[in-house]
């Protein structure tokens, strides 16, 4: 049997004893400025006993203690026991109690009408700060279990120094921070399948061999130490380089070249008649008749 069992049993008995003892509710003593109807199931910090320094859970208050007003605005409040100033004893994992909805105190408006908030009165110190709205809710970090984890959690980004802040290049707004969230978008059609890629052949110029010069000749160099001499025999005749005209491409557009006369042309008698064409004139009636019958 584990040696912790008697210890746990003693702890349980003490808890039961403390639970049976009368306790003053903090929420009753301090009038709430705003009626609260529903408690949000927020995690409650474990209360530490004054004397024993042990962790105790706040039991759910009786039904008479709940205060519920007209549900004009729903808000949750976490009611917890006053925080102890004593040194917190190190708690082992087995001694932590899990809290559920039973540990949440819900104010009931029907049970006890809430007093009107007194603007002149100072705010109650016993009241805990309100929980952040749901839109700005942030995850609550779990307590570190080991010193190493605590050290890691402490190593946060240091707060910015006071002074002129340099704007970031690209601002990014966290949705949880701004409370702005993207609307639900309709389901998008699946993206079409990508078309098969077409490999393009790179155009490269064909390898062109440099033209061999027609007049190029090979000569053997004399060995080292000997002077070069002209080749025996007459020197080859040097020919002038040939210039081959490259045919010009056909012009794509043809424009007329207009050459206008510069001097006027004048003549007194351009045509000269050298004879007359005598029409066919039949001399007899018979010839005239033959002509008309030839048509």
């Amino acid at each position, binding site marked *: 049997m584990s040696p912790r069992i008697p210890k746990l049993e003693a702890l349980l008995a003490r808890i039961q004893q403390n639970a049976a003892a009368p306790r003053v509710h903090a929420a009753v003593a301090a009038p709430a400025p705003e009626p609260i109807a529903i408690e949000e199931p927020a995690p409650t910090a474990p209360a530490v006993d004054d004397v024993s320094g042990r962790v105790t859970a706040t039991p759910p208050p009786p039904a008479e203690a709940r205060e519920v007003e007209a549900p004009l605005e729903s808000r949750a409040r976490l009611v917890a026991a006053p925080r102890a100033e004593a040194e917190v004893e190190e708690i082992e994992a087995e001694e932590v109690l899990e809290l559920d909805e039973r540990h949440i105190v819900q104010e009931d408006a029907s049970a006890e009408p809430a007093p009107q908030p007194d603007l002149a009165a100072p705010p109650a110190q016993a009241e805990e700060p309100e929980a952040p709205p749901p839109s700005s809710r942030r995850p609550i970090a779990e307590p570190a279990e080991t010193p190493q984890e605590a050290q890691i959690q402490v190593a946060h980004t240091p707060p910015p120094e006071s002074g002129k802040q340099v704007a970031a290049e690209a601002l990014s707004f966290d949705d949880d921070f701004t409370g702005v969230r993207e609307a639900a978008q309709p389901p998008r059609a699946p993206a079409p399948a990508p078309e098969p890629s077409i490999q393009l052949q790179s155009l490269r110029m064909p390898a062109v061999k440099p033209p061999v010069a027609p007049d190029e000749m090979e000569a053997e160099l004399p060995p080292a130490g000997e002077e070069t001499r002209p080749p025996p025999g007459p020197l080859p005749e040097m020919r002038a380089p040939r210039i081959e005209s490259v045919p010009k491409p056909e012009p794509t557009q043809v424009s007329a070249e207009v050459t206008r006369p510069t001097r006027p042309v004048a003549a007194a008698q351009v045509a000269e008649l050298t004879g007359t064409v005598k029409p066919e004139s039949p001399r*007899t*009636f018979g010839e005239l008749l033959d002509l008309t019958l030839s048509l």
Partner: protein
Amino acid sequence: MASTVDVSGSVRFDLPSGTVRLADDEQGLVVPVAVLSALVKAVPADARAQVGRDLGAHLGRGMVRRAGSGRALLDGGAEEAVTLLAAELAVAGLGTCNLERWGKALVFHVDDSPLAGAGDFLAHVVEGALAAATTRSLACTMLGGDRGVRVLVSSEGAAARVRAWLEQGTSYGDALLRLQTGGG
């Protein structure tokens, strides 16, 4: 140049016998124009053409008789020939005529005819006269009735083409021009 044509004795009236004698002693008949015109319009085209050619043949024989012979007529000038034809038309009471040359085409212009309303009949008369005077195979086609009747003297083929053109609406001037250029 031929002198005036002497037409004396072309028609002789034998009053005791009640007959009319023509130049070649052939009996004639004096008929009113309205009667002959009505008769020409009443008979069929073939009969009208035949009557016109027969009447023209009578005129052609008169031309030859006056010219002396057919050869003389052919060897003579066009003016003498048209004069003889005009004399015969005038003795018959069918009007006068003159000759027009449209290039190679020979056209007779018959004017002042009491039968101008029957131009095709006059064309058949001219055809008969020339055919009888010249002994040639020819055809005459009426070109138009504008201020008289113009009659083309040509071959049978040319006459058929000109008639086709005229039926298509071609004017006789254009038809004669097309005929000169050999247009089909």
